[in-house]
């Protein structure tokens, strides 16, 4: 399949877009979204390249790894969101101080 590496390239793009947002935006919710986008990018790179050999079943190992990664991502996202709410509750804003250092 000639199109296969394409999604790997998209994955790399997603990683960089997510990283940019993580660095530039101050709001924690946006940062959490950014981390998720980055994660998707990494998973795409991991999976896409598993499928390069023509006429053979795709390599299941990366798929299993991605499922692992997706579960880890949802777990950390859930925790991060609650942490964000607690930060907002204590400080009045869902942001981190001195953003520029990050």
């Amino acid at each position, binding site marked *: 399949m000639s199109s296969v590496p394409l999604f790997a390239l998209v994955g790399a793009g997603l990683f960089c877009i997510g990283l940019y947002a993580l660095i530039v935006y101050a709001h*924690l919710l946006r940062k959490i979204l950014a981390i998720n986008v980055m994660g998707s990018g990494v998973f795409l790179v991991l999976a896409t390249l598993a499928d390069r050999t023509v006429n053979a079943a795709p390599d299941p190992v*990366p798929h299993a790894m991605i499922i692992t990664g997706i579960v*880890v991502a949802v777990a*950390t996202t859930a925790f991060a969101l609650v*942490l964000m709410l607690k*930060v907002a509750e204590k400080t009045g804003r869902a942001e*981190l101080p001195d953003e520029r250092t990050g």
Partner: protein
Amino acid sequence: MEALAATVSWDACLIVLPLLGAIACFAWPNAAKKLALGTALAVLVSIASLTIRVTAAGAFRHAVGAWGAPLGIELLVDGLSLVMLSATAIVGLAITIYSAGYFKADVSSRFWPLWLFLWASLNALFLSSDIFNLYVALELTGLAAVTLTALAGSADALTAAARYLLVSLLGSLTYLLGVALVYHGFGSVDMAVLAGRVESTPVFWAAFSLMFVGLALKTALFPFHFWLPPAHASAPAPVSAALSGLVIKASFYILMRLWFEIVPADYSTFTNFLGVLGAAAVVWGGLQALRAKRLKLLIAYSTIMQVGYLFLAFPLAVAAAWRGALYLILSHALAKSAMFLAAGNILYCAGHDRIESLDRIAQRLPMSLAAFAVAGVSIMGLPPSGGFIAKWLMVEAALKSGQWWWAVTLVLGSLFAAAYVFKVVGYAFTQAEAPHTSIDVPAAMEWAALALAVAAVLMGLIAPWILASMEIGRAFPGAAIP
């Protein structure tokens, strides 16, 4: 019984037992303290048995699920992992004993399962030989560390925890991207298999750079250190001890493993760059520690400085330097934990840790101040402490390889360390006005801090044994000392 002891895989016990302990603590919060202490002892027995086995029979690999690499995951038990596991066990035991007195009832029931999770994940990490499994272990470690940091509950702690979480996730994702490229470049995630396949191609170096950046973030190498001081300074004291003493070492350990096992050759531009970052960390951490107004912040900056030392081993590139770095990891684990525990006692007693008001507290807690000072001996690298052995080995490596400027950095670091340690210790002797109202500190908490500190100093006296142990199964790379 003996037959059982011979067949039991103690390495797996180091992972499974604390996990079971964590779950049991979660299921029966009322018994959590006893369960945790029991788990700590069980882990200690396991590490002792494992040490005996490895010392007698050498390093070995453990194929999880009996599949073996590259299909399955393998655990690797050699001197390097053994040394890390032992340090974790010793510091872990002290933290467990300390925490039994430190936390109030309501926080206590939340603390124990999280702490045992952290301990288990560190053990899992030090045992793994599979770079994807290491990713999962890293996530587990990071998440446990963040939840523990947030346990303090203050605005500072929550903000620091949020920042720490984001950095930690960013670090693991970057690392994972590197893993993805390695897998696709070389078709395996097992280090031993990769060692045979990896070539010095652009793909490999890109993958390694990604993994490196991810791990350096988690290790808080300058300039990725920004998240560390607030997190380590605002976490509960026993947590700070674990974070500074153990958690940041975990990512550095992976870095060391990768460097030893699969990185094909040394590139001096790259390693010199790492050395420069390390030197910058030494200077920056030292200056900030001197400026710090709060004790725990000072200790946190000291950690940044000590991390800087570790990265000097890359440009030194001789086996002695790596031995020194590993020795530093060990002695720093003990000494820094002792410092944080001592600071925790002060905080517990006085309700604050402002350095300029320490004189009022010092009189009430001479043992904790002594623990801080004794740990300081190792942090400063004065003989006969473990820190001294580390510094000796690294300075020797620097002079022997003709790179005297790294020796200057190391010595400069010691001077910084002396300055900030004595900035604190000086207050132990000044005459204080009438002391504040204060809370009595349980004796176990004071003893835990002092015991770790004394261990850090005495560690220097068993150096031949430790040095021989750390290279079981794998000699460190780089030229031997001529």
